[in-house]
């Protein structure tokens, strides 16, 4: 088999410029976890169905299991490690205070999806929140605690 040349990919990861050598067939999720040291995006189904691999690509939630690492060249990737660098965001605080998560495996993906939602739509309705999360599977919580925390965060943490 002809040897495929490796490529150098330069991307901004959580605000920092990073360079990594990849093979074109390397998946972004795997490179993030194994070569770039971010463990929060996870492998749950590797077919884009469950959402635990979610990262923000140029601010938008995407499935890193369906993106080649090389496609990230020149782009910005944000993971949960990058969100809370200066302390937990109000959204993350709301999740913690309200015991929104149980096993926590889906949490990074949901935190990013909800962060992106609130950036676009600071006052989402219950329906809009659920639609934004519809691609993030959670087997533990039944979702209501997560949705309530997002609502609280969008109200500035106030209880209604």
């Amino acid at each position, binding site marked *: 088999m002809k040897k*495929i040349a490796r490529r150098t990919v330069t991307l901004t990861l959580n605000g920092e410029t990073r360079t990594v050598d990849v093979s074109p067939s390397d998946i972004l999720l795997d490179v993030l976890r194994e070569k770039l040291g971010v463990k929060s995006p996870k492998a749950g189904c*590797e077919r884009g169905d469950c*959402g635990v691999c979610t990262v923000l690509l140029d601010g938008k939630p995407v499935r890193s299991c*369906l993106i080649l690492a090389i*496609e990230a060249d020149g782009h910005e990737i944000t993971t949960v490690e990058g969100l809370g660098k200066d302390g937990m965001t109000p959204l993350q605080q709301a999740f913690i205070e309200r015991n929104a998560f149980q096993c926590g495996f889906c949490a990074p993906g949901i935190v990013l999806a909800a962060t992106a939602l609130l950036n676009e739509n600071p006052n989402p309705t219950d329906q809009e929140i659920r639609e934004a999360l*519809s691609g993030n599977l959670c087997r533990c919580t039944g979702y209501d605690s997560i949705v309530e925390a997002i609502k609280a965060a969008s109200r500035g943490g106030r209880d209604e």
Partner: protein
Amino acid sequence: MPLVQEFDYLKPATLGKAIKALAGRQGAQVLAGGTDLIAWLADDMADPGLLVDIKGIKGLGKIKISRGEVSIGCLVTFSDLLTSSRIRKKAPLLWEVAGRVASTGIRNRATVVGNICSAVPCTDAGTALLVYDAVMDVRGPDGKREIPLDEWFLGPRETSLKPGEIATGVRFGLPEGKSGACWAKLGRYRGEDLAQASVAVLVSGDYEYKIAFGAVAPRPIRGREMEKRLEGRPLSDALIEEVTALVPETIAPITDIRATREYRLEMVKVMLGRSLLAAVARRGGLSPKYGTSVI
């Protein structure tokens, strides 16, 4: 987990270079959104040897609406459709379709044209655009050509695209005068799902109806006999019953792991009736609002 395949990767800056790259390697595939292709590769269904990423080519990501024609470039994603106020206003059927494709994370990458090129029998974009008599723009080693959408789909995962060609966009004319439309997509629950059956209805002008069905035949199809019966006639219960009776001879659903043939038949009847009513109501500016599912 890594892909088993090894392939080379090019990201040309122009369409010409992309076509050349495809021509240079048999089995090479175009990479746009990747949500279908990468999953396909992960299931070991192809070994392309070379991927040609077209996301670096300028001008392919535009939504153009001018002089009554909508043109959607091949890099336009479903999220682009969903956030376009012009699409929402002028082609609300497409806006409604986009909101029901998968979920946000997929929509941010998956392209409309890519969905059409995948040609799965349950294609959302491919089914809905049939009612607009859309046309695919294609570029290849022999130059440009255009393929009407209803000649595009040959069978499951089979299109009229020749090897080495790239679909650069899809376009269609907007109906004149008042129009209303409805997209009904049957899923197994409320979360994201592939269509078990889908119906698109467009009514415009003096009650000219266009109807398309997805996931109930090897490819998306138009209900031309139904359209003839409906032409020029305002809806009534009797008329709806008349066209609904044509469903069994219009579609050819099968029983698979997603649904039975019988359920698909029954549901398409229900979806057709409800979509016709909704499309006509919307044509008159009445509810249900676009984005409200009728099924």
